[in-house]
């Protein structure tokens, strides 16, 4: 019998040396004449411990981390293959408090299994949702998703079941399922982790969506910045075809579902669903006017479901355990779990999947352990580049769509970027304007011109020029963007800009809060 060793293939783990560690472990085992089976699992999402190596023992999985190549010989020396004591030993993986305190539904398998091993997926409850769905009538599948209370995790939080219902009820000889895997928000990586760490769950979710609404073709629109996810998805799709989980006759049901990955090309706006569809059609990613809704006239003019990776990857467990099971997690109208991503200047950065309702403060300190620099946390940007900056005084806000809306903030895709007290919020506001200018699709004037103008005004403010004129000018520009933009790129850039100004006026050279008005 050989020892089983796990070294993550997740790109963040690789960025910290996981491939070199894996090679060193193989080499050291050979040198010592020990038979090992090395599995490249996904990441558990405890990135300060990556590369985190796990070994399978009779008492369960034991973790070691962060492991560097230079630690490998001493790990063997300490008999880590049988869970031996070592300075890097972390104990039982499942008992690590960061993991134990989470409610992992969507990420249940991520980090446990070999991502591209279909047998491993099936052994760990994979494809139970699809097998149930195949026994149900389409409107019952849609009803289960509606009952679960699942709202889109891509940012807009629109109820997934309602979207599916529209597509189901729009007759057409061709319909599409699109997975939005453009994940452009800074501070987010949950889509990437699922695609690299458990790609079959996304494939299963999309297949269920196709069966539910009567779509036979799916596309995953993947950002080009994710080469590892690309490989994992293609390998998993190939295996799903070979085993009959994809194709003209999914598991002998007589129903077809085909799936293909398409790559984006470095345009943030192509994460907006109509721009994404233009891009898939081979055009520039100009945002479309709505209506028509994509659910009625979407890709190539056909009814189309567009959902985020996490929305779709949450569907299998809903169909497996039932809408009520999922719905029992959460608070208010935010049901189920949200995979939060703790990033930036934070000691324990990682993936934290929790039922809605925990406060930002608990997340930052109980999970995150405070800033990485050890300095006070000054501000937190939640929900990507179009999300507001929150000051300390708002850290007790529960993570809930409505509670965030009430303080003029958003949860978005669940990214949480932490800044310590060395951050200058005027610089961050300038960056938001600049980002909008760089990424604007150019279709509407407020966004195209206003963001460039906004960058210039921020330059003036940072230089301390004529604040009594430039601060009101900045507010005016923000109002124009808020009210006159076709999509949320222009329409929400004022969130980070104005929240920075309102909560941190001193960084804009305003020492009396009344002057900031």
């Amino acid at each position: 019998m050989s020892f089983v060793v796990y070294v993550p293939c997740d790109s963040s783990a690789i960025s910290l040396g996981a491939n070199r560690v894996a090679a060193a472990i193989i080499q050291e085992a050979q040198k010592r004449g020990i038979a090992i089976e090395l599995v490249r699992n996904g990441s558990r999402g405890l990135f300060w411990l990556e590369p985190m190596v796990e070994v399978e023992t009779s008492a369960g999985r034991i973790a070691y981390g962060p492991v560097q190549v230079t630690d490998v010989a001493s790990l063997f020396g300490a008999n880590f293959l049988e869970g031996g004591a070592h300075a890097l030993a972390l104990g039982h993986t499942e008992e690590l408090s960061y993991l134990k305190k989470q409610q992992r539904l969507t990420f249940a398998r991520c980090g446990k299994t070999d991502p591209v091993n279909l047998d491993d997926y099936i052994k760990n409850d994979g494809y139970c949702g699809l097998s149930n769905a195949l026994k149900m009538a389409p409107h019952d599948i849609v009803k289960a998703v509606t009952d679960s209370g699942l709202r889109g995790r891509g940012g807009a939080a629109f109820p997934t079941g309602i979207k599916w219902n529209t597509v189901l009820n729009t007759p057409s000889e061709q319909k599409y399922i699109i997975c939005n895997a453009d994940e452009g928000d800074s501070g987010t990586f949950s889509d990437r982790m699922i695609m690299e760490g458990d790609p079959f769950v996304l494939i299963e979710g999309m297949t269920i969506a196709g069966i539910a609404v009567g779509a036979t073709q799916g596309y995953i629109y993947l950002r080009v910045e994710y080469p590892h996810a690309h490989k994992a998805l293609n390998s998993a799709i190939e295996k799903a075809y070979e085993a009959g989980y994809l194709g003209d006759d999914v598991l002998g049901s007589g129903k077809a579902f085909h799936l293909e990955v398409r790559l984006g090309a470095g345009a943030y706006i192509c994460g907006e669903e109509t721009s994404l569809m233009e891009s898939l059609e081979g055009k520039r990613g100009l945002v479309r006017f709505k209506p028509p809704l994509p659910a009625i006239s979407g890709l190539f003019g056909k009814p189309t479901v567009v959902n985020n990776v996490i929305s779709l990857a949450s569907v299998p467990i809903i169909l497996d355990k039932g809408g009520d099971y999922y719905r029992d997690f959460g608070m208010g109208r935010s049901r189920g779990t949200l995979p939060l991503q703790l990033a930036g200047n934070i000691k324990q950065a990682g993936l934290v999947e929790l039922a809605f309702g925990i406060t930002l403060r608990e997340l930052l300190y109980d999970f995150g352990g405070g800033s990485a620099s050890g300095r006070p946390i000054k501000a937190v940007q939640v929900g990507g580049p179009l999300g507001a900056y929150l000051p300390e005084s708002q850290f007790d806000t529960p993570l809930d769509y409505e509670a965030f809306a009430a303080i003029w903030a958003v949860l978005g895709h669940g990214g949480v970027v932490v800044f310590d007290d060395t951050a200058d919020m005027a610089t961050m506001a300038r960056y938001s304007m600049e980002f909008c200018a760089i990424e604007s699709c150019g279709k509407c004037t407020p966004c195209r011109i206003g963001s460039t103008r906004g960058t210039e005004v921020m330059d003036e403010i940072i230089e301390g020029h004529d604040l009594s004129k430039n601060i009101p000018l900045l507010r005016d520009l923000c109002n124009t963007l808020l009210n006159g933009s076709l999509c949320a790129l222009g329409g929400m850039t004022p969130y980070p800009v104005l929240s920075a100004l309102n909560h941190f006026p001193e960084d804009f050279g305003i020492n009396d809060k009344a002057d900031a008005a």
Partner: protein
Amino acid sequence: MTEPHSMQVTVQEITTALKDKPGALLPILHAIQDTVGYIPTVCVPQIAGALNLSRAEVHGVISFYHYFRDTPPGKHTIHLCRAESCQSMGGKSLESYVKTKLGIDFHETTADGKYSLEPVYCLGNCACSPAMQIDEEIYGRVSEKTFDSTLTDLENLA
């Protein structure tokens, strides 16, 4: 880099293989950039012809997307993350260091043709900021020191 003649053949092969896919233009452009390193302006008429598009349409698509380039890249392309999470961990000073070290700005290539420098807005490696990608390799918690040693490793490999 590929010779002009063989490049035309390559582009022809790629367009023929992919042109019947729905929404074929992006897959074609990716395949060309993957093989040739960039999308030479001379092959725009060829692509346009195969897809029944105008040259202006094809050109418009190439220029819309930040990732596509119409000039040859250096031997290695460095994508340095400029987005918020990386800024929170010192990304801006790393950016100035990298630019000074290479003696180029974003969207430029070093005179010796070794490195091209491109900005990127998030690599999904925000739990290990600041981050960069060189060719297909991704790097996390990049410091001035690890940036230097990474370049040294690349040069020793060559």
